């Protein structure tokens, strides 16, 4: 029952993440990446862009905090250097070019937009104005950067709350070493450790193990068109060797479920699997029962069996006189 369920979930969710990352069938028009200092969303954005280039999707990178893009062959719009009207027009212009081609619009950080007084209230409207059947949106938001409340309305929800409602997929990034440390603590019933800003130690900005070199963990929440949500944790290996990945990419999915990762997989299920399958053969004793033994065992009538059938009121004493017992009338009368 359980392994079958797991198998089904694995197949289904791996197909889903592959569809999302490859931008197939416009699976998610608006993907929001929530990252933190402990795990930057940049490798995930890089993965999206790499796959977009493989499948011939045009990438438009709107930069609000990046000076020079590390990716080649993409349309780069340095929005931080321009006014809202200027870069809005630049985006609109680049969306018009080859309008039939599928496009991926990337925002490297929404934080400055959501804290600037001119854009914070209309940010959801601004972003959704870019989305079209051929254009999907990928935006990063740094969750640990507080929004300046200088000009904000104290009673309206924060821009990120609105964005979370709007987004069709929300991916939160975690550092693999931190996820493992938390799990190890949980398994020993310890308090899970905090990292970076949450450590609460003066002077600490980032935790050790932040921004792991080889991999990151994605916590995904995807909303289907029906409204049903799918939640899953994935493991994304990260490699700077871009050329090697592209060739192998078309054949094999590199993302896996977090539970399937050898360093994360918990020990107990593995043990359970062992006893179920090969446990019997590992001992010289026959621990099972033969058919006859089973039948005999079923035939045994347990003592006091009739008491269990009910129908007998109160404290009746069930006692069979043995031959050695000496029945005493007087004692019984007392």
């Amino acid at each position: 029952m359980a392994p079958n369920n797991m198998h089904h979930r694995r197949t289904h969710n791996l197909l889903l993440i592959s569809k999302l990352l490859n931008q197939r069938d416009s699976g998610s028009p608006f993907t929001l990446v929530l990252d933190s200092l402990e795990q930057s969303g940049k490798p995930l954005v890089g993965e999206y862009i790499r796959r977009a280039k493989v499948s011939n999707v045009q990438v438009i990178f709107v930069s609000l905090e990046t000076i020079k893009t590390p990716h080649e062959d993409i349309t780069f719009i340095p929005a931080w250097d321009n006014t809202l009207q200027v870069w809005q027009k630049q985006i609109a212009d680049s969306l018009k070019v080859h309008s039939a081609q599928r496009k991926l619009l990337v925002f490297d950080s929404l934080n400055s937009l959501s804290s600037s007084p001119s854009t914070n209230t209309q940010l959801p409207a601004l972003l959704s104005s870019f989305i079209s059947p051929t254009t999907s949106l990928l935006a990063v938001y740094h969750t640990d950067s507080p929004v300046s409340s200088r000009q904000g309305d104290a009673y309206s929800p924060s821009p990120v709350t609105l964005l979370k409602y709007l987004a069709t997929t929300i991916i939160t990034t975690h550092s693999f070493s931190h996820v493992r440390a938390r799990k190890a603590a949980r398994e020993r019933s310890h308090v899970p450790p905090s990292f970076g800003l949450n450590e609460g130690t003066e002077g600490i900005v980032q935790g050790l193990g932040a921004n792991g070199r080889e991999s990151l963990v994605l916590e995904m929440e995807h909303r289907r068109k029906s409204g049903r949500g799918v939640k899953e944790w994935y493991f994304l290996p990260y490699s700077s060797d871009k050329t090697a990945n592209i060739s192998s990419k078309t054949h094999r999915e590199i993302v896996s479920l977090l539970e399937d990762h050898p360093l994360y997989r918990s020990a107990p299920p593995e043990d359970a699997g062992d006893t179920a399958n090969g446990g019997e053969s590992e001992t010289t004793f026959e621990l099972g029962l033969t058919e006859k033994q089973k039948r005999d065992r079923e035939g045994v009538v347990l003592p006091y069996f009739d008491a269990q059938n009910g129908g007998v009121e109160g404290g009746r004493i069930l006692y069979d006189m043995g031959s050695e017992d000496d029945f005493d009338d007087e004692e019984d009368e007392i």
Partner: protein
Amino acid sequence: MSSRNRIPPTIEPFLRLPPETALLLFTSTLGCSVNWATTRFIGNLITQTRDEEGVESQDEAVATAAVLLVSWVRDGAYWKTEVRRTMGVDVDKAALQGRFALVDFLRRPPSSLNGGGGGSAAGEEALLAEMERSIVSSLEKLRNVNNAQKVVLVLDNPDVLLALNAVSAPSLARFVLKLRSQVYSSAVICSADAPLLAAADAAPEVPPTPIETETAAFLVQQAHNARFVMSVRELDTGAAKDVSGVLRLTKGGSAYSDEDEQQRKDGLTELEALYVVQRDGVVKVFGRGSSEGA
């Protein structure tokens, strides 16, 4: 070569010339100053240009580099003494050779700051524009001497502008970006005391004040864009005679943009170690539990 010995070998790779457009973030707390590292960073960049025909000629960092230091809370005299004391480098001489320039906003504060324009959008605009003008003019002067050299911009405590309520965090971040785009690479020095970062907490007990929010937003954003974050803090167990503090080097959010192989080759991995600044200015970095001399 003498300058090389003044830098602890463990952290030497971090204080070399950063790759193009990279940002280094140095953070300190009130009880623990990071200036021993920043002066070494500055001195290292200036001296590396002098070693051009020297031993490390195969290294990219040997290419001529200059430092443009923009200081908000410390004056020229401080930097001059400190760089000489820690690295044995004469800043004045380097300035004459066009390898060092200082924009001293402590001694010569921008006039817009005095005008009391702080807080309003127009005042903020004028202040940032004025500061940008003076920084860019110093940059031009450096470029006039030697156009081929790679200028590294060092911003010393720009977060004081937030504390003065003169600018907002998004404007200051944009200001830093504008400056960064005009130089080869840059470093930002910030304070990371607990109150300045309290607003970055997911669920603060008390609503943060505007200044707390602004400083936290600025610092967190810089860390997101940094290649490496070098932060120092006091020892958890209190002051000690033979330990000045704890040094932590972590990868910032932009560590992904340059090649992993390069970082590995340079020995750029995260680390946490103790350090001690001795009376004569010599710094030793050592692991927990090992003896100071290690």
